[in-house]
């Protein structure tokens, strides 16, 4: 069971958080990125995600390492990112963090998704009627 995974299959949040099962945890936070029907005023038809999968999984693991180095109360991190064609409403990414107590899980969660958008070699193409574009927050 991988904690850091790039997959072409649909993602279940319940399945992802089950990867962190641990009788000593009391709090989990998750970020779930889903496909939105609009972007900069355009009606999005679907998204196409592409990864450099071997490096992407290593970069996801690096984010987990960074988080656990910075926030000592974070017990475990798992990140699953889907690639391929995703329809409106489908889940593109699930990040989950576990801890005994909740206090640091919120900042760590925000860090995880911000960092994912900085360093993980995954790309997103928005496709709308009559056009398409590769998008980045960078």
């Amino acid at each position, binding site marked *: 069971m991988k904690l850091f995974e790039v997959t072409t299959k649909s993602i279940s949040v319940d399945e992802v958080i089950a990867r962190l099962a641990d009788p000593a945890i009391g709090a989990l936070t998750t970020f779930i*990125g889903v496909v939105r029907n609009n972007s900069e005023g355009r009606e999005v038809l679907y998204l196409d*995600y*592409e*990864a*450099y999968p*071997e*490096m*992407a999984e*290593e970069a996801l693991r690096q984010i987990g390492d960074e988080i656990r180095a910075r926030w000592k109360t974070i017990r475990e991190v798992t990140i699953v*990112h889907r690639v391929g064609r995703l329809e409106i409403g489908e889940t*593109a*990414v699930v990040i989950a963090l576990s801890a005994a107590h909740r206090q640091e899980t919120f900042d760590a969660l925000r860090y995880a*998704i911000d960092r*994912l*958008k*900085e*360093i*993980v*070699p*995954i*790309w*997103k*193409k928005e496709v709308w009627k009559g056009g398409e574009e*590769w*998008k*980045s*927050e*960078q």
Partner: protein
Amino acid sequence: MGYGGDMRVKIRFFAAPREAMGMGEIEQVLPAGATVGELLDALTAQYPVLVPYAGFIRVAVNRVYAGREAELHDGDEVAWLPPVGGG
């Protein structure tokens, strides 16, 4: 292993530059000791479609981000990485 003092590296393309290249992977022969920067210059000279992307990319060598000055070795996997957009 290189031959005649040359070495061979694999270059992988993703997203927009992959589409512009029409392929996700090429091999390139370079003089032994060539750097990432020299590879990039050779690629943009050889494939003008890459020029519009060259100012915005990062490069990974064997899956680790690397600078222009990094020295390449025979068999390296170099990735030409446009701005990422996961999440």
